[in-house]
């Protein structure tokens, strides 16, 4: 099977991914800013607003090592506006919010934990950092209100397994949201994007992170990932209903969502 454009055996893919992310962990956030021109922050904001978090929610963010999405969800739940509108009979719900950040790579989780400390969230028991594999989650069936995976699903070996695990852990009414780099079809823009991906990004990786290969892998893995409609039908196959996707920046990024009923 292919991984990036280098031919790689299945067992080796997860090892290779592990190596890539151990290498990039410390510069991950910086490189994200460079590659997307800071846009990744807006994309994550959009993901969280689509999620519509609420106090008392149990949420699982997979492959979210450095905590970007988790922090946004926590901020949304704790925001003043939310608290002002809250149901007065359920004031203590705020305490019950739990956001589990699951990542297979301990280095990424460490970066996330440090960022939490910097934000002053070190003692906050709403954030739980868990090391785990997206294809075999350690959480119980029907235990999560929400599941997000941002820029993580193209790195897994078996997408179907991740989707069915997501379906398993979600409660009835729970939502699955996936933010991922996707396919661009708009004529001229597509060529520009290809040029940017194959010529600019690996070079940036070399200069900023000192690691050309990892970013070459990144760019190739995006092309290998199924296009929007195919991925949407895979999500539907896992049992989700109301599967939709929204293209951002003409298809450079897509947010897929599904509902478990």
């Amino acid at each position, binding site marked *: 099977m292919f991984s990036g454009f280098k031919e790689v055996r299945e067992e080796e893919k997860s090892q290779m991914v592990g190596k890539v992310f151990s290498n990039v962990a410390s510069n991950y956030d910086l490189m994200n800013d460079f590659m997307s021109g800071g846009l990744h922050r807006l994309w994550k904001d959009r993901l969280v607003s*689509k*999620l*519509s978090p*609420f106090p008392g*929610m149990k949420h699982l963010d997979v492959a979210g090592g450095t905590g970007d999405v988790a922090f946004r969800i926590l901020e949304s739940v704790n925001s003043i506006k939310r608290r002002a*509108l*809250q*149901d007065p009979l359920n004031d203590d719900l705020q305490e019950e919010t739990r956001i589990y950040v699951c990542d297979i790579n301990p280095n990424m989780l460490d970066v996330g934990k440090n960022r939490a400390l910097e934000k002053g969230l070190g003692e906050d028991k709403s954030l739980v950092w868990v090391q785990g594999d997206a294809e075999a989650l350690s959480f119980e069936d029907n235990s999560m*209100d*929400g599941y997000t995976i941002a820029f993580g699903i193209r790195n897994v070996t078996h997408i*179907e397994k991740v989707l069915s695990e997501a379906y398993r852990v*979600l*409660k*009835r*009414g*729970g*939502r699955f949201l996936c933010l991922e780099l996707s396919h661009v079809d708009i004529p001229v823009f597509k060529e520009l994007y290809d040029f940017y991906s194959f010529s600019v990004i690996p070079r940036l990786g070399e200069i900023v992170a000192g690691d050309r290969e990892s970013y070459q892998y990144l760019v190739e893995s995006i092309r290998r990932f199924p296009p*929007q*409609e195919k991925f*949407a*039908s895979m999500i*539907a*196959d*896992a*049992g*989700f*209903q*109301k*599967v*939709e*996707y*929204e*293209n*951002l920046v003409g298809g450079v990024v897509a947010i897929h*969502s599904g*509902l478990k*009923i």
Partner: protein
Amino acid sequence: MYRTVVNRILLTKNTGGGRRCLLRFPDLRTAVTSSRFSTTTEPQTSPNRPLNPADSSTSSSSTSFQTSSGAGDIPRQERKNPPAEYQGEQARVLQASLRHVLRLGWSEEAMIAGAKEVGISPSIVGSFPRKEAALVEFFMDDCLQRLIDRIDSGEELQDLIPSQRIYKLVRFRLEMQAPYISKWPQALSIQAHPLNVSTSFKQRAMLVDEIWHAAGDEASGLDWYVKRTVLGGVYSTTEIYMLTDSSPEFRDTWLFLDNRVKDAFDLKKTIQEATYLAEAVGAGMGSSLQGFVGKVIQR
């Protein structure tokens, strides 16, 4: 919304006096800047259903697509209950949310409380495209359905003259809003929001159409629009009057409504009077202006 109108037309053609039903569908309209794909999976009756591009849906940029899933087939057949359609569950959540509206307003909080009551994760609230608007629109559809049921079952309407029929129907419809009157201004402001205006306008247009239809209206052409606009005006002004009415059982509102309906039916006479007035003014102003005024009145 289009689908409900289409269904109504189809159903009224098929069953003359039978019970008509509005099918409620979630609004699949999409925002201008994003393109969407939506698929609904249904309980599998035959394992080898071929891929059909399904009926074209309301919006030009979203398509409905039924898939017979290969890998997902077997596990789904093994499950004891076929997965409920999500629209049904959404409707249940909205129905339950209505009970919390008085306490929490037409808001996400009411919908979260409704979802908890039904036993579904409140995350489902995020799947409604315009959240509070979905709740208000559901209520409006529900009221319209109740009105239609009342029209279909009520025989006493036949004995009344049109203006009285309209009075009764508008009153019946507004009474449905009476329990929520303290939070109704919020609902109105949600309906007036630019994103929601087109849907609420359509719902009101359907409501007004339904009432005129029940009052035995056979107008066509310009008359049709005039009648609906006039009734729309009567309905809206009464609705707003009701917001500040504190008389027992809204007595003052019904009096107001009665007067407005009478005025509306006198409108024909009013237009005639306005014509005479214009002619008189024209006569007083001299022949050149008379010619101009004559053209305006279209003698």
